């Protein structure tokens, strides 16, 4: 597959070295309800996710970052707000 630039989430995915399938499985485990195809569209900014969907993908990426020594470098949608005010 040719390399497409993708958005911030897609770049993070490449940084942590997860395939789309692996990331989807993690996203799904963390409660994601989008299909693998839809998740990929979100990564490439082709589909606008809800704040929650965005955060579940970010959680999957950040947990992978944590496994390899990072500390939640990918921002959540509510970073400026308190978690409890989300919706």
């Amino acid at each position: 597959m040719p390399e497409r630039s993708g958005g911030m989430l897609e770049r993070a995915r490449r940084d942590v070295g997860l395939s789309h399938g692996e990331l989807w499985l993690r996203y799904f485990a963390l409660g994601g309800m989008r299909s693998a195809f839809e998740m990929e569209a979100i990564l490439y900014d082709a589909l606008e996710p809800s704040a929650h969907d965005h955060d579940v993908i970010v959680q999957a990426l950040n947990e992978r970052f944590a496994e390899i020594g990072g500390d939640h470098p990918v921002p959540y949608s509510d970073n400026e707000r308190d978690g409890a005010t989300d919706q």
Partner: protein
Amino acid sequence: MLDDFGVGVSFAGDEVVLRIQGEVDLVTAPELGAVIDAIIDRGHRVVVLDLADLDFIDSQRLALMARAAHRLERECGELGVRSPSPLLLSLLEITGMDALVRMDHRASNSEPQGPEQSVGTPGIPGQTRRPESVPPASLLVAIPARRDLIDGALRVVVALAQATIERAGGTSVSLRRHGRLTTVAATDETVATMDEDQYTTGEGPCVAASAEGCRFEIDAVADETRWPAFAPRARALGIHAILSTPLFAQDRPIGALNIYSRTVGAFSPQDVKSASMLAAESSTVLADAGAEEKELTVRLEDALRTREVIAQAQGVVMARDGLTAVMSYTRLRTMAQRDKSSLRHFAEEVVATTSHHRPSEAAHSGGGGADA
């Protein structure tokens, strides 16, 4: 009890459509399995699961589908899946189940195609109308996800056979994929055509070896009487001897290594032995790939357990702190991050802490579960 079961059954000739409704939980999943078994026992060989009413499937049901697909495949039938949600489709793909079932692209029909029945134990008719459009029963076998690697290995096997067997004019490997035999590696066009002729006529040593799991050999095509439709085509292409050795995956025949020769009586006992060894080698490759697929199923089950425990913890936080589902999720992950813990691990602690308290105590525990 069966009235609450939520499975609509309609019959259309050999085909049985099960429309699954509502949640199949721990109690009803085995019952669904029993219903599918009963339907197969009655001689139906094409079972279609209509999943239009489901947006989710658990590992139990996935396992049940895999078991049904395997059983039908052994008995020359097939399991079809109709109207899976996009999420469900991803689950089927990631577990390799999509290779095990036929995707039935007809839209779900709320009008039953045949006489609809409730799923009591009796009442499945042994005789049914023959409808106009019943798809032919065909074999379906799970083929490993990493096809490019498998195909590469099989091409090597073909090249080795060609080099080892002195009078081999051409060599190929046929595998059953999505219910039909396909040539995945061949030394040349003539060989690929020979294979294709056998798939088309539904006969010949390659087809027989793939179906029956035994070696088939034609010593002299001119004298061949077993396959009257195929033999003349072979002769027309100048092929006089054929040796087809079966390939296996998880002890089931799924294809054949085919060696074609332009010489009558081409194959020596040593050639037959070499072909068997190479076929066994190919079967090992296929079995390894099958194991990899199994590994994926284990990971999916793990993912499903993670989902479940997070949902439970969400429920705890929702009830305790009066939050919406999304808010409780956000709270859980914020606290997990603060705790330098994974969401699953944190959720497990929340659930474990809660189950140690009586419900009234849990309601007063406050503080959000980090006090585990």
